[in-house]
């Protein structure tokens, strides 16, 4: 969600139960401006909120020249002081995937995880307990990057790939038409494409290289993992991810108003196949 015109954008997702108190809205409007200036970001996004037991994390992202790759994430518990989230590495994500349960709200909290390894074979097998500690800050970083990877989406045509390879906002994007906006194929994952390279040449023949450089979400597995709703008749498109419950994407058809926001517990919905 773009921090510019924040109070307007947040009202678009209000019907999904995402509401911020006036105090927090005011604090964010002030602190995000300072953040943009200090960190020399081109733009700042309010990414969302991860609910903890004791405290909630508020998360913001800033982008540089390349909107996709040049992206930094920051978190705050009071909406005023922001700290940088460490870069999530693959090893870190793997380590954090064993943690379950809710976030506590204290970034220095350490989860303990005991792994039981079997050494040797047959009767000589010995069980060795290996306890690792995982910092909540690391878990936060890995969850944010996972959410971005899985469900961060943009409308088709909102971003273009410049000849230099950088991904920039498409100035001439006028918003999706309503008949396109109700199709899942008009929304793209905002990440390095994975499925695009696996497509056959025939499938890729009709693609516009400047625009269709991302994966469309209609091929997501499982099918129906997105819930698309029209609000206000057809004046507002709301897309909710059922995989990461709490992620809400909004788009007002025919305008450049679009964005997403996460408001949830920071846990992936692994029960999804049973729930459809």
């Amino acid at each position, binding site marked *: 969600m773009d921090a510019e015109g924040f109070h307007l954008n947040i009202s678009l997702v209000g019907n999904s139960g995402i509401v911020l108190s006036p105090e927090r809205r005011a604090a964010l409007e002030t602190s995000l401006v300072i953040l943009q200036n200090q960190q020399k970001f081109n733009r700042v996004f309010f990414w969302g909120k991860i609910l903890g037991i004791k405290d909630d994390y508020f998360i913001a992202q800033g982008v540089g020249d390349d909107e996709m790759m040049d992206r930094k994430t920051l978190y705050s518990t009071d909406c005023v002081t922001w700290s940088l989230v460490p870069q999530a590495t693959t090893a870190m994500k793997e380590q954090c995937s064993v943690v379950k349960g809710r976030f506590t709200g204290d970034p220095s909290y350490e989860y303990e995880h005991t792994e039981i390894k079997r050494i040797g074979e047959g009767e000589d097998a010995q069980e060795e307990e290996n306890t690792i500690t995982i910092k909540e800050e690391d878990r936060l970083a890995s969850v944010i990057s996972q959410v971005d990877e899985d469900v961060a989406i943009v409308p088709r045509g909102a971003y273009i790939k410049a000849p230099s390879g950088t991904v920039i906002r498409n*100035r001439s994007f006028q918003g999706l038409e309503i008949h396109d906006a109700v199709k899942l194929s008009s929304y793209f994952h905002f990440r390095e494409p994975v499925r695009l390279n696996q497509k056959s040449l025939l499938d890729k023949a009709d693609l516009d290289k400047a625009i269709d450089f991302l994966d469309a979400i209609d091929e997501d597995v499982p099918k129906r993992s997105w819930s698309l709703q029209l609000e206000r008749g057809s004046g507002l498109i709301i897309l909710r991810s059922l995989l990461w419950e709490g992620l809400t994407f909004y788009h007002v058809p025919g305008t450049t108003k679009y964005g997403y926001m996460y408001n949830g517990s920071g846990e992936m919905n692994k029960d999804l196949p049973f729930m459809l």
Partner: protein
Amino acid sequence: MSTTDEPEQQPPVEEAKPETPKIASPVGTPVAVATPRGSVSSAQNVNLNLNPKEAEFTNAKAFLLTASTKTNINLYDHLSKVISNILDGRPANAVDIFEDISKDCKRDKFISKVDTIQDKVDRSTEVELAEVQKPLFEKNTDEGADIEVEEDNESPLPNLPELMYNFEQADVGVSREEMVRIYLALKNLVDNHPLQSCRFWGKIIGTEKNYIIAEVEYREGEEEEEDEEEEAEAEEQTEKEDDEAGEEGEEAEEDDTPKPDWKPPPVIPREENRTGANKKTYFVTIEPGKMWTKLPPVTPQQISVARQIKKFFTGRLDSPVISYPPFPGNEANYLRAQIARISAGTHISPLGFYQFDEEEEEEEDSEGRDSFVENPDFEGIPVRELVDPSLSNWVHHVQHILPQGRCSWYNPVQQQEDEFEDEEEDEEREEPDEPEPETGPPLLTPLSEDAEIDNLPPWSAKLSSNLVPQYAISVLHSNLWPGAHAFGTEKKFENVYIGWGHKYLQDNYSPPQLPPAMEEFPSGPEITEAEDPTVEEEAALRAAQQEAQENAEEMEDVDEDEDEEDV
């Protein structure tokens, strides 16, 4: 000149430009009209008198002047228009937005002035919804006089804006415009039904539509009147079903299909309206302004199955719930069961706001009391104490639902003594014939008694503001039912639920295992495979049979003799 004013009706028109290069020549100043091919050929004719450089120039220009077969414009005109636009407008960083200007120019040219479907009224879904919602905002002028009279009576309509304002302080709620619409829709509900109390229960998000839920109580005795019609319909349906069942029964006799000897567990009757899990009635709508639909009362079976499944709501009340174990009913029943569970788990009030009715206290001491009244002497609890982590200042004011699916325990052995319950929780019992009554925490139990599951505290209590704590309110978020919230100020409190309608599970959901397959036949000698007898055994058997036969014949003779004697 007039031809250029209507570009879309123009035949392929080209401008034969003068030979001297003229940049940014105004568009639409044709000196002579010629087709592209004509211009090329004329260029070739002129070519004879030109030097090679000039000839190249004219050829290139002729190419630029070639009209597109699709859009009927040519690049030369387009470029000159773009350049003149840039020079007129003088935008900063013109080179960066060059594509946009080019696009705009093309778009300008192709805006149709005459639209054949211009007069058609746009009936988009947006307009339709707005028309549905418009009556909400219209003041009811016919009953204007009545309203003034009624103002003296206590209206059951809550002050929703105030309550939602409090929730908004705690990052909970829906957008304000939506809230006003819900408020007006509730007003509509109150006007059309004889209600004693009414409140906004919450919103459950579905995959296609969302449910907005109102919790109401009818005035004494008036619900039955409304129910009568519904029951009449229901009876008709059951009659039909009976007929069908009868037909099926006949067929069954003809075919003589084997019948399973499995007997269903005894049906536990649902609680009467106004008691237990059916204490309140719920209305639901998918969009404020549309019809409110009354949800059917909940049965214990539905609650116990709802505890074992986890499904997304779709937003269509009549859609089937496909699950294992099979859910008895459709989504309306599932929704009602979840509402009952959420209410029982998360509806809380400050300690002392409600008290038991002292007159009834003695009568119902043994069974556990199920009714309470508002405490007129409630002093209010300071906000500081309400957010105390022990949470002993908050109490549940909705009855706990027992494992059986009822709030008050029902003894299934009363009627069917030889059958026992098939409930999960009952398996531990030693003697199934004498089920122990299930008990839960009594009404108005403090939250401090709530069980902690896997180190997860069931509630998170927070102050709405850390900057100005003296005016902050206390807010409780449920961790067991994510989306359930309560706020409390000195004397006011309210509960609301906005979420997906699922209970929090720390571990993954896994559906209950299928029971082992039933035996088709009881195992016995008839169907047990045995070794074939040897020749000797057969011979021995035959000899024995023969002997037996002879004996029998002798016996028969005796019998016959006896018979004859009898006659």
